[in-house]
């Protein structure tokens, strides 16, 4: 694990307006997540986990405060700059997999490499290695509708980690999976973290995921209530 922060936030607030009422989803969060960390953000529903994750990924702008990803300040970036940052430095894993239905597993996984203009040979080599590593080799040509939930989520993980992003954000990645599939998926992500040094930040309720966390951040009412680094590695 490097000591270089993959993510840094400084007094981040996110306030939503609903029918004229201000709802403070994130309240003054200051964090530093180091490159290669396996971080779990836990907390009850409405504690601001997903909102904070969206802020870290540049999907939504904070109301106040500043956010740096891999040293780049998100709060001063243009829309185009944010899109570029998401493409090159951030990977996302969503609860509902969210693979593009018209693309095959391989095309989904290599999508960000395609957008970055990486050559076909290089794309295929990188994705093949990843598919081998995460146990979905042979499924390259299948469309998402022909894959199980677990397989789809593995393709989604491949899509998120391909091209070595500075940060992978995963929002409830195991919520739609059965226990055995969840365990296998988490083991696979822990392995990627260990072998490739990918920085993972999860938002979850899943106790199995919390058990694997090297660092557990507990959010309550949008603020950090607990930030605990553990001795145990993120290994199965």
């Amino acid at each position, binding site marked *: 694990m490097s000591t270089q922060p993959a993510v840094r936030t400084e007094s981040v607030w996110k306030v939503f307006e609903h029918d004229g009422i201000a709802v403070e989803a994130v309240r003054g969060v200051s964090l530093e997540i180091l490159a290669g960390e396996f971080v779990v953000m836990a907390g009850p529903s409405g504690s601001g986990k997903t*909102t904070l994750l*969206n802020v870290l*990924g540049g*999907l*939504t702008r904070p109301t106040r405060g500043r956010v740096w990803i891999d040293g780049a300040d998100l709060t001063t970036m243009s*829309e*185009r700059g944010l*899109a*570029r940052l*998401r*493409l*090159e430095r951030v990977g*996302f894993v*969503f609860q*509902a997999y*969210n693979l*593009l*239905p*018209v*693309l095959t597993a391989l095309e989904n996984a290599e*999508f*960000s490499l*395609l*957008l970055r*203009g990486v050559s076909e040979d290089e794309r295929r080599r990188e994705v093949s290695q990843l598919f081998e590593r995460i146990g979905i080799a042979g499924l390259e040509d299948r469309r998402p509708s022909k894959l199980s939930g677990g397989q789809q989520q593995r393709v989604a993980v491949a*899509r998120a980690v391909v091209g070595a992003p500075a940060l992978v954000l995963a*929002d409830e990645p195991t919520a739609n999976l059965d226990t055995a599939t969840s365990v296998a998926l988490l083991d696979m992500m822990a392995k990627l973290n260990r072998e490739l040094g990918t920085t993972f930040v999860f938002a979850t309720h899943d106790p199995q995921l919390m058990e694997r966390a090297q660092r557990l951040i507990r959010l309550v009412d949008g603020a950090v209530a607990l930030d605990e680094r553990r001795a145990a590695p993120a290994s199965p």
Partner: protein
Amino acid sequence: MKRYAILLRLARRNVVRHWRRSLLTGMAMMLGVVALVMARTIGDGAHEDWIDSGVRMSSGHVAVQHPEFRFSRKLEHRLTAPARERVFAALEASGVASHVAQVAPRLEVMGLANSPTAAVPVRIMGVAPDLEAAFSQLGVEQRLVEGRYLEPGDRLHAFVGQRLAQRLDLTLGSRLVLTAQDAAGDIAGQLVRVVGIYRTGVPEVDESIVHIPLATAQEWLAVGDDITTVAVLLTSAWDVPRVLRRLRRGMGEADVEVVVLSWRQATPELDAAIKLDDFWGYVFNVVLFIIVALAIVNTILMSVLYRTREFGVLRALGLTKRETATVVFTEGMILTAVAGMVGVVLGFSVTWLLWRNGLDYSGALEGELTFSGVVLDTVVVPVFRRVQLIMSLGSIVVVGLLASLYPAYRATRIDVAEAMKFEA
């Protein structure tokens, strides 16, 4: 460019994936194009017939006159014999001969037709019978009520309409006196005998147009060899601009005695009628395409809203707003291109297969159909032209383009974080 290839791939596959929706939208566009092609080919065919009938009865596709004649209708504004010779020379020399079907010299004057029972205002046309028979076609079988049309060698003969014959109580062989102002400005009369009676179905024509031999008219009105109009009938109304241009150049700008007019200038009432019909045609097309556009907007917009999460994912993966809009826009344009081409092919094919020999709507009518002094043929033969193809494709491209813009814009307004929560 590489990135656009990816967006194109996404758009293409989305069109195929949602094939029912694509088919529905495509069908709406295709039917719009088919309707447009049919309307244009049949409409243009009807207009050609209409123009053909109209110009035969008036002064041809191209009329050469004294510049003032069309306003004054007076003999003092006539084409002198030398001017007439220059016109015929220009017709020979300016490379328009291949477009010309008929040329007819005419001496036209407003006057009165008198019989022992009544007097009726008429338009008297001195015509060359052999040339005029094929030109105005007043003497053809379906118009001839009795008698015959004028023939070369006729002198004191007149060919009159049925309504005029009724009003003046004339029958074949009856005598009538035509009176008009001659070249000197004096009232002059000419006795003629009815040699034939025609009926076009247009009351104004059947009551007012009287044909007499040109030589008789020239002698009666004391104009020597002068005429008022050289009427030129072309093989197609589409050749008018080309013939006008060449003939005007051939006549020379300096010829102040002569003006070369298109049928639109020489027969403004026919031009106005066709423009009015065209206007309603355009209104029909616009309404048709607004309906098509709404169908496109509706289905593409529904698809954008239905795929909110998908667009959110694309944005999360690094697509810009503009690129997301490009995917939606390209989907619309793919549908437009395919539906447009199929529609054009289908429209032309169906029209050609069903009506290439003419669309007969006589069953829907009682009696003749007349408009603006012209009897319309009840069998319309569609005409097929490249410009219709370009116009039909162009129209659907414009409609598809406009109809795809709003859904594309809406795709850019998606809140990425909110989109992830979206359940279709």
